[in-house]
């Protein structure tokens, strides 16, 4: 029961400085499970996620041999049909809520937008759902947050608002781009258990993009390790911390360890061969 299958995905930007290839032939498939994507900054994690929604903006171009979601060929869909999938079928928790929330719209209006515009709910019905969604992500004063503007929220609060917003329409596939990086440990655990519950009970597919290899090792089922737009290694999450690929080992060595010796930070070992 494959939910999403991607074959030979490429994302390239034709810039004045030349062709930038952000994603170069990524393939993977996803069931109703938790797939982690790790890799250093700029390795193409976000672009891979956005390609699934076909939301890479020009001059970016998406090409793929196959990108199939729930039996539909995403590359062949019209923009109109694609838009129907966005939100209720496929959603994406955006990386940085500081820039990803509309600065001049109330948080509540942004949360309720889909319910009001697409589902045509009344204001009070939509509001009740928004409050419930905020409570689910451990926000204690949802009424006040609904009336706030994004700049009045802390980073962790913004992240939780973003997660709540994307979970409201009950997507079948959620791409979560660094969704918990600004949360403290207890809230993070709570949010992860919500996502976990959705995967287990509702059969949601989850792509979990993160810098935190230890978190991914604990939380996900499988992991893609990306380097320079390619998948250098795909492995079961439980094997991640014992990975043998030198690049993955390098990423692991870069993790700060609590109580570990404070030697000089090891440089990330890079080899052009891995990106071949």
């Amino acid at each position, binding site marked *: 029961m494959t939910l999403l299958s991607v074959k030979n995905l490429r994302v390239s930007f034709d810039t004045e400085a030349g062709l930038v290839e952000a994603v170069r032939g990524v393939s993977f498939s996803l069931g109703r499970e938790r797939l982690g994507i790790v890799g250093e900054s700029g390795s193409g994690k976000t672009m891979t996620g956005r390609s699934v929604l076909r939301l890479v903006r020009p001059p970016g171009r998406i090409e793929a041999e196959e990108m199939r979601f729930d039996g539909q060929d995403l590359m062949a869909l019209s923009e109109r049909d694609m838009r129907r999938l966005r939100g209720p079928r496929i959603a994406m928790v955006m990386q940085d809520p500081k820039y990803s929330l509309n600065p001049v719209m109330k948080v509540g209006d942004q949360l309720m937008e889909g319910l009001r515009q697409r589902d045509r709910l009344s204001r009070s019905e939509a509001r009740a759902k928004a409050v419930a969604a905020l409570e689910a992500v451990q926000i204690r*004063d949802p009424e006040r947050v609904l009336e706030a503007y994004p700049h009045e929220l802390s980073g962790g609060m913004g992240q939780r608002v973003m997660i709540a917003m994307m979970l409201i329409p009950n997507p079948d596939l959620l791409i979560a781009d660094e969704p918990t990086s600004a949360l403290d440990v207890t809230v993070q655990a709570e949010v992860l258990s919500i996502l976990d519950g959705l995967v287990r009970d509702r059969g949601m597919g989850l792509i979990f993009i993160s810098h935190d290899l230890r978190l991914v090792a604990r939380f996900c089922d499988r992991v893609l390790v990306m380097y320079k737009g390619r998948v250098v290694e795909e492995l079961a999450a439980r094997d991640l911390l014992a990975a043998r690929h030198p690049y993955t080992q390098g990423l692991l060595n870069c993790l700060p360890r609590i109580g570990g010796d404070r030697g000089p930070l090891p440089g990330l070992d890079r080899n052009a061969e891995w990106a071949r």
Partner: protein
Amino acid sequence: MTASLPSSPWAGRLRGLGAALFSLAATLLGLLFVTFIIGRVVPIDPVLAIVGERATEAQIAATRTALGLDQPLWQQFLIFVGNALQGDLGTSIRTGEPVLQAVSRAFPATLELATLATIIGVLAGVPAGVLAATRPGSLADHIVRLVGLMGYSMPVFWLGLIGLLLFYGVLGWVGGPGRLDAAFDMMYEFEVTPVSGMILIDTALAGRWDMFVNAISHLILPAGLLGYVSMAYISRMTRSFMMNELGQEYITTARVKGMPEWRVIWVHAMRNVLVPLITVIALSYAYLLEGSVLTETIFAWPGLGSYITDALMVNDMPAVLGGTVVVGVAFVLLNLLSDLLYRLVDPRAR
């Protein structure tokens, strides 16, 4: 981890209002000061301008005292401010009419023209700018840019003369110079109560639709012309603001939620575009209020620009200064309005 929400939004807003009122008062005082100084430094003797070259010494001295010119300068300024606050802007030398009375007749004519022009500029310029921004490099983008460039580079008086010649002289589609046909001028004076001084509003209130239509036929050419100039500026700025907003991450968020493109552009991006655009529209409006002298001259429009220029021609300093003060006050009020609107659309500025 809690949001730092403001405890009482009203306290902040009141403080903002207090500061705004204070700066308003300070600006107005500064305006009066500058006008006063200009009146004293121009090489025109106000006494001679009134009594004439052949007056006797005694006449000159008497007028001097009557004008308060024998007092120390700072006292003269206080009197000037005091008078201005009571609505006394002096008496025109040319006509002997109180300046305020003349100005309150001329200003609505200018206001009517500038307001209509700004409405045209916004209604045409904003959609044109959005169209260009959403299809950069397309034919529509090039057309908008070209039309805007013409608005920038063509001299207004030249366009005005050509327009009059073509649409009034040859085609006869529009009314000619002035605010009404001569036949209506008298009627307007006697049959319509001047509520606002703006003909469109006053004739509509009086139900005189014949005059209303005639006024529009006179307004349409100068207002269209100034509206075109305003549109050129507004469309160019809208295009660049909109391009900038469409590159922001929150736009992608709206698309991720499956929002249709019209909503992404006209709701999500437009609300952010409005923040800087309000200032641009206010600037363009202010420019039309104070800068339409040439247009008023060509179209024989009895507005403030005409009034001040005519007064300047005959060294009628009280009229010039009074007119200048009114233009300045309009400018300051417009600024205040745009500031308030800015706070309304941008929560970060509150």
